[in-house]
């Protein structure tokens, strides 16, 4: 049986199932934003945006866009009943003060100790840009990293130590990739779920840090 890596949508679908009812969640751009679409409909989740919104709703209908109601990715969004607006400094007080239960962040690299690299490849040719990534990494009560398991040319992105400049040190709690769901624990990286048909040795081979397979590991269901 050959491994069946998850599609991008499937990663989002898998993550969506884990977002808990009642959580205050900040979504990074891309995969994380996609994950919100797959939260079970019986859960109420309050989404936070760095530019001063709690209670973001879905995309507006065509013609209903308001350019003053946007998310951190600068896309127009809507406000749910119960939404609130505040200024940037308060928005980051929420982040840094640990009031955001969960930040879903795209990642370039994650290290076995939870170090996160998602803002820079260190390439000096391009101007660096960080946005709110460091604040979210350091401040959110829990951080989940979402990414492809390897780079396009097959290099591992889960490493003993990040080679890219860090976003925040020791903050990632869980990693969702197209191949596995992995917890970052004090004892190291613990594989909770693997893509259907994937052997542990194969996963380890695509990973730049030592993995352990949980006794109760399962096949990822999406």
């Amino acid at each position, binding site marked *: 049986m050959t491994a069946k890596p998850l599609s991008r949508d499937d990663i989002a679908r898998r993550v969506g199932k884990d977002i808990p*009812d*009642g959580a205050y969640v900040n979504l990074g751009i891309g995969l994380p934003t996609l994950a919100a679409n797959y939260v079970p409909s019986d859960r109420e989740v309050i989404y936070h945006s760095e530019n001063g919104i*709690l209670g973001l709703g879905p995309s507006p209908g065509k013609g209903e866009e308001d350019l003053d109601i946007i998310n951190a990715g600068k896309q127009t969004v809507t406000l749910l009943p*119960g939404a609130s607006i505040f200024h940037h400094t308060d928005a980051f007080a*929420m982040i840094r*003060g640990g*009031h*955001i239960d969960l930040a879903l962040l795209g990642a370039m690299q994650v290290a076995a100790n939870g170090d996160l690299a998602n803002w820079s490849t260190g390439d000096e040719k391009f101007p660096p840009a960080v946005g709110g990534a460091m604040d979210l990494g350091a*401040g959110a009560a829990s951080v989940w990293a979402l990414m492809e398991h390897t780079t396009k040319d097959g290099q591992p992105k889960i490493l003993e130590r990040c080679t890219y400049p860090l976003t925040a040190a020791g903050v990632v709690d869980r990693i969702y990739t197209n191949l596995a769901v992995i917890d970052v624990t004090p004892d190291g990286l613990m594989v909770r779920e693997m893509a259907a048909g994937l052997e542990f040795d194969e996963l380890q081979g695509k990973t730049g840090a030592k993995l352990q397979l949980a006794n109760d590991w399962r096949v990822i269901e999406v």
Partner: protein
Amino acid sequence: MIDKRVPSLSAAIEGIKDGAVILIGGFGASGIPVELIDALIDHNARNLTVVTNNAGSGHTDIAKLLASGNVSKIVCSYPRSAGSVVFEELYAAGKIELELVPQGTLSERMRAAGAGIGGFFTTTGAGTRLAEGKETRVIDGKEYVFEKPLKGDVALIKADSADRWGNLTFRFAARNFAPTMAMAADLTIVQARQIVELGEIPPEHVMTPGIFVDRVVEVPAPVHAGQPS
């Protein structure tokens, strides 16, 4: 579903432990959550530290809480005022510890706790007794004092309107310490004059976003502090 409403004052106060640090909103008689304080007195947790601007007046609300014997320490800026007889007697008898903090520093320290700030430098208090023993630093030629975050286990807040997500509004200057204290406590408990439907408070007029609030109880006709209850 997120529903922070609780059915009673006793349910609102439930679980407060001995030794807890309790932030209590209000300035003078304005914004004091009298009914929550009464419920806390009935709850009878002991050895509390209370953080609030004044030390109560007469024999109601904060003064009544102090008189219960359950408060071992008060952190405030202005404990001595007309009618603060209960506090003065406890203080004279050595039965209550006082940490005196300049009013703006009190508020800023709680904000720091709520905003994930590890400490800050302020000119307030520099060169005075209240800076004794504290780290100081000269910045751009002025002396600053290092102040640390002040975090609560619990905050007791009086609001005007609230919804089930915990979004709050306050009446005029009853707002005072409430938004800051709501940020600064692990468990923020609110009494609101009215609980409204989600969306009834316009998003731009929410004064404390629900993320800072844990429990809301409706107290439709709250007693004003210092008035007979």
